[in-house]
């Protein structure tokens, strides 16, 4: 232990942390736009005003005289607007369809004109699902699909399960509980069989409260994505095991902006050097010009429930 103090003393003698001013004199308030738009579903886009952090204690974040325009394929669409918390507003519109090109223009009295746009992607292509045992998790869901090799496409998947949890309340008296719509648990960190984490098939932890796996297509026509998951956390000492499970996969086709934004959020959560300026700014993605945030689209299809028969093998 003394060694540690010696090291700290050495650093204290040679090192120095000193404050410096972050010049925000010319930094202006800007709008933050947040809009995930699902094909064939009603749309809500939230807009707030964010202020320079140095003015946060005193600045008013209420949007003053907001002016907005939402266009679909160049034609302005009818919207309803409502004020929401923290001085922001919500824009509601009817559902858009796959292939629609959406553009939002927004300005208020003390923000510049912000512009954001995206295209609502088409449906997830024809696919097959196969549930297998996995080397690095309890299960592996193989998603096989046809992809246009000439276009860039971005995909995602959410898996839910129904089944019976065996509660460990003493080995003599296990307790059974039927559960539905449970979240699967992605493998994380180092594990027994693999030196490198699954990190480059990124997993977004907080898309509407679900674990969303996202990936980018390859240049081949026939694609396969391996989605590894556990039914329960490995460290869960409460649920001893599960049985009689079935899964359902919701398959996403994402707009480019949505893929990039989600990936950036994942980078932000997992980048140990981000706040020290020692790594690339991978976590800063925004597709709102003169603002921050995202306006992006996706479409979903849900699979049938697939019985997990692998417990019996």
């Amino acid at each position, binding site marked *: 232990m003394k060694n540690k103090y010696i090291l700290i003393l050495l*650093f204290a003698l040679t090192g120095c942390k000193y404050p410096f001013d*972050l010049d925000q004199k010319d930094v202006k308030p800007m709008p933050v736009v947040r809009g995930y738009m699902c094909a064939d579903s009603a749309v809500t886009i939230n807009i707030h005003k964010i202020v320079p952090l140095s003015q946060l204690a005193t600045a008013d974040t209420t949007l003053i005289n907001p002016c907005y325009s939402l266009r679909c394929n160049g034609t302005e669409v009818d919207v309803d607007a409502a004020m929401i918390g923290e001085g922001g507003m919500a824009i509601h519109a009817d559902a858009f369809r796959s292939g629609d090109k959406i553009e939002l223009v927004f300005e208020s009295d003390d923000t510049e004109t912000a512009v954001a746009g995206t295209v609502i992607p088409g449906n997830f292509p024809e696919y097959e699902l196969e549930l297998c045992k996995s080397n690095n998790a309890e299960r592996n869901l193989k998603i096989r699909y046809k992809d246009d090799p000439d276009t860039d496409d971005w995909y995602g998947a959410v898996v839910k399960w129904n089944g019976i949890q065996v509660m460990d309340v003493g080995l003599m008296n296990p307790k059974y509980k039927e559960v539905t719509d449970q979240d699967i648990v992605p493998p994380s960190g180092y594990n027994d069989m693999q030196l490198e984490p699954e990190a*480059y098939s990124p997993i977004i932890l907080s898309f509407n409260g679900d674990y969303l796996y996202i990936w980018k297509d390859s240049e081949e026509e026939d694609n396969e994505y391996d989605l590894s998951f556990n039914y329960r956390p490995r460290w869960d000492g409460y649920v001893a095991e599960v049985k009689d499970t079935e899964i359902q996969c919701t398959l996403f086709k994402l707009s480019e902006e949505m893929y990039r934004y989600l990936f*950036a959020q994942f980078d932000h959560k997992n980048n140990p050097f981000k*706040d*020290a*300026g020692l790594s690339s700014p991978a*976590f800063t993605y925004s597709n709102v010009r003169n603002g*921050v945030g995202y306006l992006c689209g996706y479409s979903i299809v849900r699979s049938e429930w697939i019985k997990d028969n692998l417990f019996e093998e």
Partner: protein
Amino acid sequence: MKHVLLLITTICAMALSAVAPALAQQSRTLRSEMKVIHESLGVNFVYDSAIEIDVPYSGKPMKDILKGRQNSVMPDSDREYLELCLQTLFAGTGIEYEIMKKYIVLTQADKRKKPKDYTIFIEEQHDTINEAIITALTSKEINRTQTGMQKIDGKAFNRGFAVLSSPDVLKTLQQLPGVASGTELMSGMYVRGGDGADNLYLMDGVPLYQVSHLLGLFSSFNSDVVESVDFYKSGFPARYGGRMSSVVDVKTREGDYKNYHGLFSIGLLDGRLQFEGPIWKDRTSFNIGLRRSWLDVLTEPVCFLISSLEESKFRIKYAFWDLNANVTHKFSNDNKLSLNVYGGRDAAKLITGNDRQPSDDYSSKYMTRWGLEWGNLVTSIDWDYKFAPDHETSLKAYYTIYDSLFGLNDEGQTISGQRDEEYYYSNGNKSRTSDLGLKADFSYRPAENHHLRYGATLKYHFYNPVSYSVENEKLDGKVTHEQDLSQSAPRQSFESDLYIEDEMSLTDWFTANIGLRYAAIATEGKWYHSIEPRAALRFQCGDYTDLKLSYSEMSQNSHLISSTYLQLPTSFWMPSTPKIAPSRSRQIAGGVYVNFPHNIKFSVEGYYKTLSNLLEFRGRWGIYPPITRWEDALVVGKGRSWGAETSLTCSDEKTSVEAYYTLSWSQRFFPDFYPEWYKDRNDNRHKLTLTATRRFGKRFEMYASWNYHSGGWMTGESHGIWDGEIGGEVETFYAGPNNMKVPDYHRLDIGFNFHRTTKRGNESIWNLSLYNAYCRMNPIASQIEKYYDFTEENIMGLTYYGAGYGIIPILPSFSYTLKF
């Protein structure tokens, strides 16, 4: 009559004695004075035969100047006397001189007077020089057709400032305009918007993959053996290729063919030994330079002392060494074979442990070892042969390897009663990058005004990063858990280059270097081809002014995979692959270069450069990037930079002053990070370097260098919104990449050299240096600090500022050098 004759003779003698000094003065010519310099200092002159040297000279006699040298206590201060002599002798003659090792090259100041043929002054010395050397020396002027090129003589490094006791090649280059140094004290070279891994470092023509010791405090180039460094930022000749932003071509010296000599130096952190001489007089020579740090000599006893005071074991050790060796054999003046070897290695270890036995039936011990090692080995065989008066070749076979290791070992044993538990865990990463290459360069002068160079290179690259994890647990001697995992991702590629360039003097006022380079790489079944045009034009406007213009394209097939901006040896190199295309740069540059009288030189140069297929790591890993999925961890983008660089230098026999200023912009576009162009983190708008050297008398000289550049950029949360609740949440946002400016960088370095002569007549030099003399704590990393304060009045207070971490205070250092 006799008396008359005697009288006349006496009068004549008196008259003659009266005018004798004047007659003697009239009889002195440039040639005679050059001979005095030759006889005193042993140097030869190489010059265009059109230069008139049999013209009268009426200035201060060289003998008078050199008298001071005979009384000097510095027998090896010949260089200073030589410069003084040459400056005096050729002042106002229209002759320019350049000191090249033991030869002085004389050229016409008026460049419109083309050289005819070359004369070697002092014929009896002709065996020490050959046509190849003359060509190399005299073509220097044509080389300078290039923009953005700087040639630094090896001796300049040793006369420059020495941080932490050793002069350093890269630290010197970092001061030049257009070069951003990145992290404090590291050997970073971000040239004109480059990413730091796009500089071609050549050691005698062989690429080096890692060029730093002690995490960048020292570079791999031992200045004791460096002959010269050619540094290109633009206008790259076609003979160079493989990196995008700059070329650092380091040439080491051949040994002396006649005499043995060398130097020994010891400083605060390292010691150096250099020795050279003939193996076979006038035929074969050697030159060896050795450096080793000796920090471990201090840390080992301190650690031993600490460990002896307590049960815990503690050991920290760091050491680096490098060796340069050159053996050259001259079969004839036109036929030479040389062997070059460079080896260098760094090793850092931290060992902690404990060994205790509190009772008879209980004992425990453990040991944790952390290690970081990296090193280079470069070997090459060169054959230089002139097979016709106007045609010569250089053939080279080389092997270069760079490897690094980063590992952690844990082992221990606990004996409690009859229970004996043992464990051993080891994990880490290592990587190896090696090249095997064959290179042929040809030089052909078909006419007086053309110098053709052409050649080819064939390279085999092998890259092998490895991750490993070994676990072993035993209970009472029996294995209870065993695991031995390792993953490697070897890659290989073949690369071939062809080039041709022609240095042309098309008119009296217009010279050009036009070239073309073709590079091809085969990697995992995919071929990439690159055609790279190069052009450099020079227009001479009058006697003193040149206008230059250049365009060049460069490609890069090897990429540094690094998870952080720290220049750690945990990074590894990988080739272009079917997923990762070669990077490419295009640059146009132009400038005005003026040589004023009194050795004052001024230049201003502008450039615009684009970079494509730039790679960035997504950056959510530790310090070691993933070895199997590294391609998925990278994103591809573009870069652009532009700016202007000015240089003003002046010098006389005692004083030298240099001022460099850079005004530049550097931007990046990575659509995965941000949909628009954003500032590069090394977008240092202004950079200013002021350096002055002054010699006081014969024994003392001092130098000072002040470096300033605008702060770099980091990404930080700049905006926020508060939910309005006491104790509520503040959501923060990044307005964009690299949106926060870190403080400006500046520091002052001062150094003093004290020359002495030992009893045996050898020169010794004491060097004292202060790095960062006014203790400016320039940050190596910065971050945003913010604290929220919710009061009872429901008013939120906020503390919001940047915090810089500076770890390099004022650093005094010393060294003692003995030349023998």
